[in-house]
């Protein structure tokens, strides 16, 4: 994706690789998708007559741990890109795998947490909080899952030597996606799980 289709391109609107531009356009649609979900949550909550304190239902320390896991995965993703920019193949593979692993850990904890709370009666139909909680974190988790699959595909590509210090576009663009999911979680953590 870092190759241009047209060899000499006159004044592209922004002087960045095609793939990076495309990923940002995709992220625009993702920002708007989460705006629809999170925005609806915000207005429904502010317009509701009552709302439980999340801490009384959710496992705050566990969610905090999950946040730290996802933040760490953003670090490892950034370091993966940093590694391949310097041509360090082994480090790239290591960091990609680590990022994917942290993503899987995030999902695992989430799944465990969902099952536990559902069993205790906190379901999607229990309350508006329940509906919003599962909807928002559920869609977020689906995005994390897609991200993990993407990372694993990058890992396999890296194992076949597809990337180098001159050719690392896909790592960078996938990183943008991964960091974006992290940002969504950062917001959800604060305004859905804590507040």
């Amino acid at each position: 994706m870092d190759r241009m289709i047209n060899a000499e391109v006159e004044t592209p609107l922004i002087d960045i690789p095609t793939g990076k531009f495309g990923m940002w356009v995709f992220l625009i649609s993702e920002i708007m998708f989460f705006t629809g979900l999170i925005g609806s949550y915000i207005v429904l909550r502010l317009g509701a007559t009552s709302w439980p304190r999340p801490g009384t239902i959710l496992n705050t320390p566990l969610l905090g741990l999950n946040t730290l896991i996802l933040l760490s995965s953003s670090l490892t993703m950034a370091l993966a890109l940093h590694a391949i920019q310097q041509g360090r193949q082994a480090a790239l593979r290591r960091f990609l795998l680590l990022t994917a692993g942290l993503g899987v850990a995030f999902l695992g904890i989430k799944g465990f947490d969902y099952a536990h709370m559902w069993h205790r009666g906190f379901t999607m139909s229990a309350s508006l909080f329940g509906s919003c909680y599962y909807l928002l974190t559920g869609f977020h988790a689906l995005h994390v899952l897609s991200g993990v699959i993407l990372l694993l595909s990058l890992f396999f590509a890296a194992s076949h030597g597809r990337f180098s210090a001159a050719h690392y576009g896909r790592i960078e663009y996938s990183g943008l996606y991964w960091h974006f999911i992290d940002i969504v979680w950062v917001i959800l953590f604060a305004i859905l799980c804590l507040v």
Partner: protein
Amino acid sequence: MKINAHPTARTYLAIYGWLLGLTILEVSVVLAGWPQGATVTILIATALAKAMLIALYFMHLKFDRPLVWLLPGIPVVLGIVFVLALFPDVVFHLVQRM
């Protein structure tokens, strides 16, 4: 900062440190049980700060040319305007009783 310069591993680790610190602050504030108004303000501030750090450094926006900011900037502004437009009906229930 030179356009398209890349941060060092040190920078990434430093940002990570800030992100960890802000998260710990958030959890502490909630567990300490401060009044709702103060908690909400702090949490929104920390969430925004963390989001900005990730966007500027991990997503490289600080080092990209300014025009790139337009790409995430437009939907963020639009999203805020859209959600605000929902407030009169959904939040304040200023609907017309037909």
